[in-house]
């Protein structure tokens, strides 16, 4: 038994358990921390898959920037303990049935094409991380240069949009 197999099984269990924790936790702060754990395990999956750049970007962008933003808003709004709302009585069972249908559908497609994916899943025995990184950078800055530049415009637009949205109007009184 190889150590990667043991690692994979542990990581998969932690990832699924932390996603379940996100779904059931009452306190929003706990939900955010479960999501951080999930992002960290997915980052280790990326390392297993030979994608160290994506793994580190995952840790810095998702687990770092995005989750800090989430925690900041949770604490700003004091939304960590919302009163329990009375909702539609049939919403929860219907949601569980629909999610189960989605899972079964995806699983059916996966196992139907198992032969196809099994053929694909035999990459070279070892991967040269430096070469992989170099080819990633070459592709990103040659073939995908225009989309890369467009993402910077997207981030700028998002930044301006957020500033405009949260700015108080001149006549508006202090809330």
């Amino acid at each position, binding site marked *: 038994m*190889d150590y*990667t*197999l043991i690692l994979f099984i542990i990581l998969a269990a932690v*990832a*699924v358990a932390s*996603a379940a924790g*996100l*779904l059931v936790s009452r306190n*929003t702060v706990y*939900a*955010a921390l479960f*999501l951080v754990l999930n992002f960290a395990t*997915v980052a280790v*999956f*990326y390392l*297993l*898959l030979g*994608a160290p*750049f*994506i793994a580190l970007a995952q840790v810095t*962008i*998702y687990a770092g920037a*995005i989750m800090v*933003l*989430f925690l900041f*808003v949770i604490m*700003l*709004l004091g*939304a960590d303990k*919302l009163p329990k709302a009375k909702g539609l009585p049939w*919403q929860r069972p*219907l*949601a*569980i049935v*629909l*999610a*189960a249908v*989605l*899972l079964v559908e995806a699983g059916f497609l*996966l196992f139907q094409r198992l032969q196809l*994916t*099994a053929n*694909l*899943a035999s*990459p*070279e025995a*070892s*991967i040269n991380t430096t070469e992989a990184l170099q*080819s*990633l950078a070459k*592709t*990103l800055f040659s073939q995908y240069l225009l989309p890369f530049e467009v*993402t910077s415009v*997207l*981030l700028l637009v*998002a930044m301006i*949009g*957020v500033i405009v*949205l*949260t700015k108080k109007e001149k006549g508006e009184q202090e809330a």
Partner: protein
Amino acid sequence: MTQIIPLSWYLAVSMLLFSMGALGVLIRRNPLIIFMSIELMLNAANLAFVAFARSFGVPTGQIFVFFVMTVSAAEVAVGLALIIIIFRNKHSIDVDLMNSLKG
């Protein structure tokens, strides 16, 4: 390092995470947790992208993950700003109260 884990296992994990994210969007009423579930689904899709990139041996999948991360960062910034404005106007963020457009 030998690659003994088949691609389908990664796809199965990705599938499970995506379904749990969809379930979270459907059952929770706190918009922050709905938002986090959306992030979970994006992450599951990213995992499938990287797994396919590894098995085809091309870097394109990783580049798409990079773009997905950028877009989700922008999306989170704008979405959280909207949640703050809604809280300012309604003093609550329960999604059941967002029915001003209901006829």
